[in-house]
């Protein structure tokens, strides 16, 4: 076995972290969960050799890889097994994927919790999964060596078959029992593959969840059925912070199928034999709400206050050079305001949860990104010990951050109703409940003053941003936010912009409105990419320079960024003639360890913006599955396109106006551009891929619209604020 110079021994501490915790997992009795086998769901199988929580080799030669990250479309049920399978040396296409229970073995390396988010699944588990796979392979090799009385170094493996120099061979399955009866190899004995010998990593790999998802068999949270289960829908407050004064449920209780009506903290739950009866029962409720202070809350009023705030100095998040002096002395400068609205995540699967409470125990079936926190919060709500809460993770019909709830809202209410009813309960959110339920991307008002010097290059960039801070309003706030109140998610992508900027100052005003906000695919980056990349484009225009060449010059000292920018421009044919009426715009943004550049090609026909084509270049380091990297870029672009073109949640009288896809339109296939994705690997560390595709698209489109119309779009969504 060749090593890449990093034998496991040199990483012994990390290795032990992985394997040590796993033992705990096995001792805790990991629940057997349904298993994806060759794309089909089968009951899990417990027999065989399981050296740690992550892999099990069955005597029937099955290879089961247990994944603790949540699958919300981003491909973790394919990418993570591929990494382990590479070192175990089996073809990922024949492994089983088992959805893990909740166990410290699957905790995020940065926090004592099982959590999926921040585009971190591959980058934080790559090394550990490789070691675990290599360790299991070593154990099988040692078992074979003992069986044949040969030196373990004389054996080789290929796709689950071990062969010795005399041509004898054994399948992994045939060695599983022997391996299980031996002591595990020392970590010193384990070496990793030379990446040049990778058979599966770095090559397109078909998704392992394809079959269950094209046949309707994948079980999402909303699909879970428990014996004796009832369905609840909840009448929720019409405004954030509204208090219930009075409930008249007489008519609701008369609706056929309605079983009960229960008031819980999040609203009035109508519990019925089926969803339709629950919905009709909810329609029949007569509720009196006290809006209180919320009656005065509106996006318009916030905008008015925040625009004034943006004129005043804020908390300093970044200060390089002397922005004030540079602005004062500049002859050519801008002083502009950029605004972005609240946005709902609008996952295709509306929020839901199934809960069952028996005695002091609670079991939940959730499409969640945040299992450990959900367990803790549900336990607190039920006043039971967190160890008595068991969570079964389902497929997530989209997540985008919403299913990593700041306060486990959707899990808690199901548990509370289940406890009251003494029966399994499924709480279904309607689309309107979901869209009006808050936890939005923050509304954001930004004042930007920037200047160029006599050479045309930027001499000053001052960004004052006003919004409700995201991390500060989650359980991560304590860890992430400075004692002065600076939330890194508010300034990410602005304070650390890659462009050479001699004088840069970023200031923050933290707001506290009652509208709940949350991380929304790429967190602060979809806001700061819009403000930064639009401003750079403004400065290029002010200097009379080509926006691509202008960025090139600003990235002279950043070869990785430059390579990505150049690749996008090259593939898009930047500078080459376009059909009449078509225009290009460019943007680049780094987030979650990956650099993405996009060129959007747009036209305006009869007042309608059409995005015809998006060319995307990405450097995420090693692409485990290049095809899924492309898929995530396509996904991030179209998600960001919805936001840029039409996405807007307005608050009036304390509540969200837009409830469903008729008033909260999202991109449909006819509006969807052709997208080509180019992967640039500069050899840097592995970056994330679920989120970084989203930030650049709004500025790329707006910059193209500027090229088309001379109009700078400083407020989103485009369809509302582009004058045609």
């Amino acid at each position, binding site marked *: 076995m060749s090593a890449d110079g990093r034998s496991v021994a040199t990483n012994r501490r990390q290795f032990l972290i992985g394997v040590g915790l796993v033992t705990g997992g096995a001792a805790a009795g990991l629940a057997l969960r349904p298993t994806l086998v060759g794309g089909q769901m089968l009951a899990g199988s417990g027999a065989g050799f399981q050296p740690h929580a992550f892999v099990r080799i069955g005597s029937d030669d099955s290879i089961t890889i247990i994944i603790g990250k949540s699958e919300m479309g981003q491909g973790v049920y394919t990418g993570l097994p591929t990494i382990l399978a590479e070192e175990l040396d089996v073809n990922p296409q024949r492994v089983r994927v088992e959805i893990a229970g909740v166990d410290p073995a699957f905790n995020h390396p940065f926090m004592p919790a099982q959590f999926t988010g921040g585009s971190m699944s591959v980058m934080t588990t790559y090394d550990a999964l490789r070691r675990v796979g290599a360790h299991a392979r070593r154990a099988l090799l040692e078992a074979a060596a003992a069986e044949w009385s040969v030196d373990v170094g004389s054996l080789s493996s290929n796709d689950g078959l071990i062969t010795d120099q005399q041509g004898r061979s054994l399948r992994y399955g045939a060695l599983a029992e022997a391996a299980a009866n031996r002591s595990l190899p020392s970590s010193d004995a384990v070496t990793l593959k030379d990446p040049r010998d990778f058979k599966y990593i770095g090559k397109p790999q078909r998704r392992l969840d394809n079959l269950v998802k094209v046949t309707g068999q994948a079980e999402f949270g909303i699909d879970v059925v428990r014996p004796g289960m009832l369905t609840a829908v909840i009448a929720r407050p019409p405004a954030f912070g509204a208090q219930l004064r009075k409930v008249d449920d007489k008519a609701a209780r008369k609706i056929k199928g309605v079983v009960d009506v229960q008031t819980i903290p999040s609203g009035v739950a109508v519990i019925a034999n089926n969803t339709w009866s629950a919905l009709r029962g909810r329609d029949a409720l007569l509720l009196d709400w006290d809006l209180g202070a919320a009656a005065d809350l509106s996006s318009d009023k916030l905008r008015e206050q925040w625009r004034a705030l943006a004129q005043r100095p804020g908390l300093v998040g970044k200060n390089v050079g002397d922005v004030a002096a540079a602005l004062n002395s500049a002859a050519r400068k801008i002083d502009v305001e950029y605004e972005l609205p609240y946005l709902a995540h609008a996952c295709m*699967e509306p929020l839901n949860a199934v809960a069952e409470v028996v005695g002091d125990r609670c079991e939940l079936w959730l499409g969640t990104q945040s299992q450990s926190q959900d367990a803790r919060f549900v336990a607190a709500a039920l006043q039971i010990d967190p160890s008595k809460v068991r969570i079964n993770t389902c497929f997530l019909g989209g997540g985008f951050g919403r299913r990593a709830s700041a306060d486990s809202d959707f899990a808690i209410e199901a548990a509370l109703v289940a406890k009251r009813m003494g029966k399994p309960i499924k709480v279904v959110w309607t689309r309107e409940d979901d869209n009006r339920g808050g936890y939005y991307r923050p509304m954001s008002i930004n004042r930007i003053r920037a200047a160029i010097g006599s050479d045309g290059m930027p001499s000053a960039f001052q960004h004052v941003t006003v919004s409700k801070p995201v991390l500060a309003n989650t359980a991560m706030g304590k860890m992430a936010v400075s004692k002065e109140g600076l939330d890194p998610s508010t300034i990410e992508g602005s304070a650390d912009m890659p462009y050479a900027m001699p004088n840069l100052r970023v200031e923050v005003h933290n707001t506290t409105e009652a509208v709940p906000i949350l991380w929304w695919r790429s967190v602060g980056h979809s806001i700061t990419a819009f403000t930064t990349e639009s401003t750079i484009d403004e400065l290029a225009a002010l200097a009379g320079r080509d926006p691509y060449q202008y960025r090139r010059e600003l990235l002279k000292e950043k070869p990785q960024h430059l390579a990505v920018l150049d690749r996008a421009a090259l593939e898009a044919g930047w500078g080459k003639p376009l059909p009449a009426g078509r225009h290009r715009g460019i943007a680049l943004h780094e987030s979650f360890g990956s650099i993405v550049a996009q060129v959007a090609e747009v036209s305006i026909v009869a007042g309608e913006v059409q995005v015809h084509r998006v060319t995307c270049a990405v450097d995420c380091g090693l692409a485990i599955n290049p095809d899924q990297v492309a898929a995530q870029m396509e*996904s991030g672009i179209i998600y960001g396109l919805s936001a840029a073109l039409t996405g807007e949640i307005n608050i009036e009288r304390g509540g969200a106006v837009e409830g469903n896809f008729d008033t909260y339109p999202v991109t449909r296939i006819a509006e969807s551009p052709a*997208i080509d994705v180019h992967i640039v690997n500069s050899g840097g560390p592995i970056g994330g891929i679920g989120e970084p595709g989203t930030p650049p698209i709004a500025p790329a489109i707006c910059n193209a619209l500027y090229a088309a119309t001379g109009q700078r779009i400083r407020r989103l969504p485009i369809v509302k604020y582009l004058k045609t």
Partner: protein
Amino acid sequence: MISLKVNGVQREVEAEADMPLLWALRDVLQLTGTKYGCGIAQCGACTVHLNGQPVRSCSIPVAAAAGAEITTIEGLAKGDELHPVQKAWIELDVVQCGYCQSGQIMSAVALLETNDNPTDGDIDNAMNGNICRCGTYPRIRAAIKRAAQIKRGDAAA
């Protein structure tokens, strides 16, 4: 009791006449492959076939479906033999979260029943009622063309 013929099987459904077909399928018959997404025929996640026509089951009362041939995603494959659209979806790795894909596939199958060689424009027209928040649209376009190829090949074979 309302009598429904779903995927070739006669089923008796105890439901109010005005219950949308979607909830009768999901809650009463436990055919959960058909998804709830919006409830107002905006997103297409609930698309099923009624006598071969694609319809939004969230907006059709179950009583109106009595006597019709209803096909859901669960009834598309013939035994282990997947429909050409399902095969193409796998070949091109269309799915991401997968939640909208039952509806997407049912709409695509209906399109190919009447058009064996759809253009991008035909696809956009037929599929514009199906929302995907993961943004699988470029692959859906490619997969429908691939499915048309497979289907034409099957027919020739």
